[in-house]
């Protein structure tokens, strides 16, 4: 088993997300992350889903997705030819001046943005490939994470490749 990312174009209408996730559920896949948004033509949305799966079941899942009426095109993304990004919002507990200094350092190192700051907390936006965000969270864990929210992986293929 390994994490695979599948990206696909669907009709932008009610119920499509349900039907897609229902297919993943039926086949017993746990969705690690999902990101959805409309594309340049608002009639369509692009979904990017990461799942933990073996290659054979994944290949069948891709075919099952292709079969769905609302799904227009499906592609399993090759990690070597794909840029993957995820965004994270995190609120850190920074009453302690040293903690505050450390927090700002880590955020800065990761090219993050401080979005909100008060006497008790810092909220930051951090973007990176998924592994980077995991690493960042590992660093700031000791400072104290109040809460966090991740967007899920979104991805595009490099160069001429496209969905």
């Amino acid at each position, binding site marked *: 088993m390994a994490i695979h990312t599948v990206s696909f174009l669907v*009709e932008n209408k009610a119920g499509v997300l349900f*039907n897609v996730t*229902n297919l993943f559920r039926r086949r017993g896949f746990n969705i690690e992350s999902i990101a959805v948004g409309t594309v340049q033509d608002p009639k369509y949305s692009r979904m990017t889903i990461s799942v933990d799966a073996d290659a*054979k079941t994944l290949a069948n899942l891709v075919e*099952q997705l*292709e*079969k*769905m*009426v609302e799904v227009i095109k499906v592609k399993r993304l090759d990690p070597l030819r794909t840029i993957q990004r995820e965004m994270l919002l995190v609120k850190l507990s920074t009453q302690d001046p040293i903690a505050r200094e450390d927090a700002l350092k880590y955020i800065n190192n990761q090219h993050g943005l401080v979005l909100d700051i008060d006497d008790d907390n810092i909220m930051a936006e951090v973007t990176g490939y998924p592994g980077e965000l995991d690493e960042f969270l590992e660093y700031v864990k000791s400072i104290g994470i109040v809460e966090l929210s991740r967007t899920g992986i979104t991805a595009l293929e490099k160069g001429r490749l496209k969905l």
Partner: protein
Amino acid sequence: MTEMLGSKAFVKSLENEGVKHIFGISGGSLIPICDELLDSDMRFILARHEQGAAHMADGYARVLNKVGVCVATSGPGATNLVTGVATAQIDSSPVVAFTGQVNRNVIGTDAFQECDIIGVSASVTKYNMQVRTPSEIPETVKKAFYIANTGRKGSVLVDIPKDCTTLSGEMDFNPQIKFRGYEMDHTPKPQELDWAAQILAKAERPLIMAGGGVIAAGATNELVALSEALLAPTANTLMGKGAFPEDHPLSLGLCGMHGTQASNSLVPQADVLLVVGSRFSDRTTAKVADFNPNGKVVHIDIDRSEIDKNVETVTKVVGDAKMALAGLLERVKVLKNNPSAEWSNRIQEFRHDWSKEADTANGYLRAPKVIRALRELLPRDAIVTTEVGQNQMWAALHYDTYLPRTFHTSGGLGTMGWGFPASIGAKAAKPDVPVVDIAGDGSFGMTENNLATAVEEELPVIVVVLNNNVLGMVAQWQRLFYDRRYSAVKLKGNPDYVKLAEAYGAAGVRTTTLDDFRREVKRAIKADVPTVIDVPIDPDENVMPMIPPGLGLKDTLWRAD
């Protein structure tokens, strides 16, 4: 564009699709539609339970290769349809189900008889849609029929809020429908045909397995021609019964858990196994590793997602089975012109003369003999449906089927109670041929109330109840694998089927000898009311052959003893 009431537009849309029969039950949310149907020539066949209505539409669809239509009201009417649309979907039968829904302004409020049938049915239909405005009705109906009846066929559910039928809208009855994500061309690739043909032509022991896809594609002639060109023995799956005439010298009959000796012996020995329009059900393959351990599997299927799903193939042809088989035949004829008969002659080893077998055992008629007697009495084009369990396997083994679309069964979902309402749908589709439901008492009990429908609609189907007062297949497993500990299978409270039939205004008879049985079948074929023939059989009789659970074709037990 025309301004029209939603209910009127709905009825007109169905007429535009060529609908002649609607199976269903009315209800609060359907009153406007049913009112409109009074002024239409379409015939409304009133079932006694929505599950029955869906099975009737399914039986009708399978017989005619035309979309079957069923309707049910919102809430319980809709949920009662679910088993029916699931059965049709897994057997690739084109059924469109329409459900009423509460008014749009109360959807989501748990209104009376409200159910989220779109959510409920999503996993068991090919597609589903909810109408959101009266104007969407014509386009939605057209889409539903198109999706149900193209590609790998299946069931589509359309949910219609009541106020969309009581209000008017601008209607376009010739909408352009297009789906960017729905494959519409099923022409096989020439290169895939070339590869498959080369492998087939080199085979020394070729064998073909025909699935339901052959029937769906109307590819029987092409299949027979290819089998003959290769001298390839030809087995069938349960859904493929009728794809290849079972009186053809190359026919092996059913393969799988209750497969024939010929099929289950030869399939594992084939060096090239061509599987056409089958999804390699676990009931067909038994233990996958022993299915065809040393040969090459070539798979033709219209549904790409079936390739390599359950069984690994060496090559595939994705596309319509009729075009694929015709393409293969053309190529094979060039590549191979003198196939050896040595391999196909082995079929002779397995011929069994059933006329020498006794009619009775333990004082009861034997089910295989009853079904063989029935076969002899029915014309080649008679239609048989089955229930699920022992009756189904006996029918599959002993009712030789000669023509496509004359043998119908719930193969995928295995829905007990399917056969009887399906036979009513079949009779509505083809009133001029005899239609027989080969039933067991357990299954018949699940939908027998539809006798009322058969009587009032003057659809004189014949139900042969192989009656052992037990859920026979489960009892067989308990007998063979659970040390005869019979749990939750004995049907001591079964009714008297003769009286039951008579209570509904149908004919009921009980037969205990084959001569009586033959006489009653002959009478029933000519009768103008439905007939229930109760045939008591031995509760200890097993369906044989059988593969014990978890084992492969080579482990088939041929006899119970």
